[in-house]
């Protein structure tokens, strides 16, 4: 594995290797000295064209725990705001000797371009591109499910997952569907028809418009954020109506089976897609998802950078 661009690139063995490695990383994070010498002398660049707090901090912490040097490159206040192209930014990072570039970009496909255009020699990790993919989020979600479901045995075969909300604009949903399918879980997407992408019937999952019919049959439900900027685009009449029809409140939460967990990639809009009662309930695992994110990203960085580079480099 040289790059991590799409959750769909991971076969079952590769995905399980990352998740098992993450479990060992998590065990090491419990002790007083959390730093490991593994990536000493390697440089990881966080190239963030789009605002993100938790993903960037998570990658930064993961790289630092493995003793890599971390450079944070935010598009705001950089030469990108002066009109520099992705290519020139990449060439600059290459000249500085980046071993890995963690990229978040507003354009779908930017990480793929960066990885395949021969601009840089290092690894590329997709930290979210446009409405396309966010593979490390899917990995940390799968990791969280492994810890909570099936008595922590780690088997996700046949586990049923509901993903509710703005599927159309969600890179989290796409990556999750691809990864969960690889791991043998069954996914049902729940959204109003206007928030489902064209061609959804080709995705390896079920689709429903009725959240109340789906909730009693899932082991985990993942609520997606409805972005405020979508309101103007008339995907649904009012925020209030959306919340009534697709939001998860206490009453709906009680439709879930006893063991089911509630997930959210964050940041949450309390009162919109999820009520405060649900967000603060014992079933909600959002805080744990954040902690798991660091372990999963440590595993990804270790597996990408920890070994020998491929021949010919």
């Amino acid at each position, binding site marked *: 594995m040289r790059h991590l661009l799409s959750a769909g690139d991971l076969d079952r063995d590769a995905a399980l*290797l990352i998740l*098992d*490695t993450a479990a*060992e*990383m998590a*065990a*090491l994070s419990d*002790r*007083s*000295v959390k*730093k*490991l*010498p*593994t990536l000493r002398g390697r440089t990881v660049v966080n190239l963030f064209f789009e605002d993100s707090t938790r993903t960037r901090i998570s990658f930064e912490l993961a790289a630092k725990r*493995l003793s890599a040097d971390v450079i944070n490159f935010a598009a705001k206040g950089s030469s990108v705001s002066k009109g520099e192209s992705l290519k020139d930014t990449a060439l600059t990072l290459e000249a500085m000797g980046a071993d890995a570039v963690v990229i978040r970009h507003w354009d779908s496909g930017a990480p793929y371009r960066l990885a395949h255009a021969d601009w840089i020699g290092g690894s590329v990790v997709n930290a979210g591109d446009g409405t396309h993919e966010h593979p490390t989020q899917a990995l940390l979600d799968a990791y969280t499910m492994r810890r909570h479901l099936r008595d922590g045995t780690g088997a996700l075969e046949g586990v049923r997952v509901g993903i509710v909300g703005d599927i159309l604009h969600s890179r989290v949903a796409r990556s999750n569907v691809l990864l969960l399918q690889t791991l043998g879980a069954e996914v049902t997407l729940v959204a109003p028809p206007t928030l489902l992408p064209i061609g959804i019937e080709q995705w390896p999952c079920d689709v429903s418009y009725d959240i109340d019919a789906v909730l009693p049959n899932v082991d985990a439900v993942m609520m997606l954020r409805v972005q405020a900027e979508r309101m103007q685009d008339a995907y649904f009449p009012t925020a209030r109506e959306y919340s009534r029809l697709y939001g998860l409140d206490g009453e709906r939460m009680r439709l879930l089976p006893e063991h089911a967990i509630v997930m959210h990639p964050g940041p949450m809009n309390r009162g919109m897609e999820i009520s405060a009662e649900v967000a603060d309930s014992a079933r909600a695992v959002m805080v744990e998802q954040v902690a798991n994110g660091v372990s999963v990203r440590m595993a990804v960085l*270790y*597996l*990408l950078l*920890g*070994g*020998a*580079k491929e021949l010919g480099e």
Partner: protein
Amino acid sequence: MAAARAHDLRTVLTGDDIARATRRIAHEIVEKAKGASDLVLLGIPTRGVSLAQRIGLAISEIEGIEVPVGALDITLYRDDLRLQPPRALESTLIPAGGIDGRTVVLVDDVLFSGRTIRAALDALNDVGRPAAVRLAVLVDRGHRELPIRPDYVGKNIPTSGLEQVHVRLVETDGADSVEISSAREA
């Protein structure tokens, strides 16, 4: 060629030999530590962990107290990470009492270059501060590349650099034996 090499296997320790060696090592550890009260045994995965458990069991039979046994994975501390593809990690399990102020006995199956033990010492450093660190190995085959020596040895086996030592244990391989082959490559 491969088939011919398979016949080159030479048994140097039988199952009984291994049982006697681990029992003797257990006695030596207790003798040197003047008891077993402050001992922690840490095996280096995978076969070191099985050996540590066996030695721990033997010590508790001798002294009548439980000795904490754990596992210390050293993969993330290796000095040859950049020479090979990334390796899968093994479990690290530090006993609940920790290692601070205790005598830690590292247990591994074969002592060769000493680089694994160097990595283990680095890893221990991040876990805590033991009062002392000792090293027990089932086989010392020589060819040290670092100034490291074992405190307890099951058997010294002089080998040539081309030979390979195969330790097989019931827990991982279904049977107990140590064999040497003269294969030139893995």
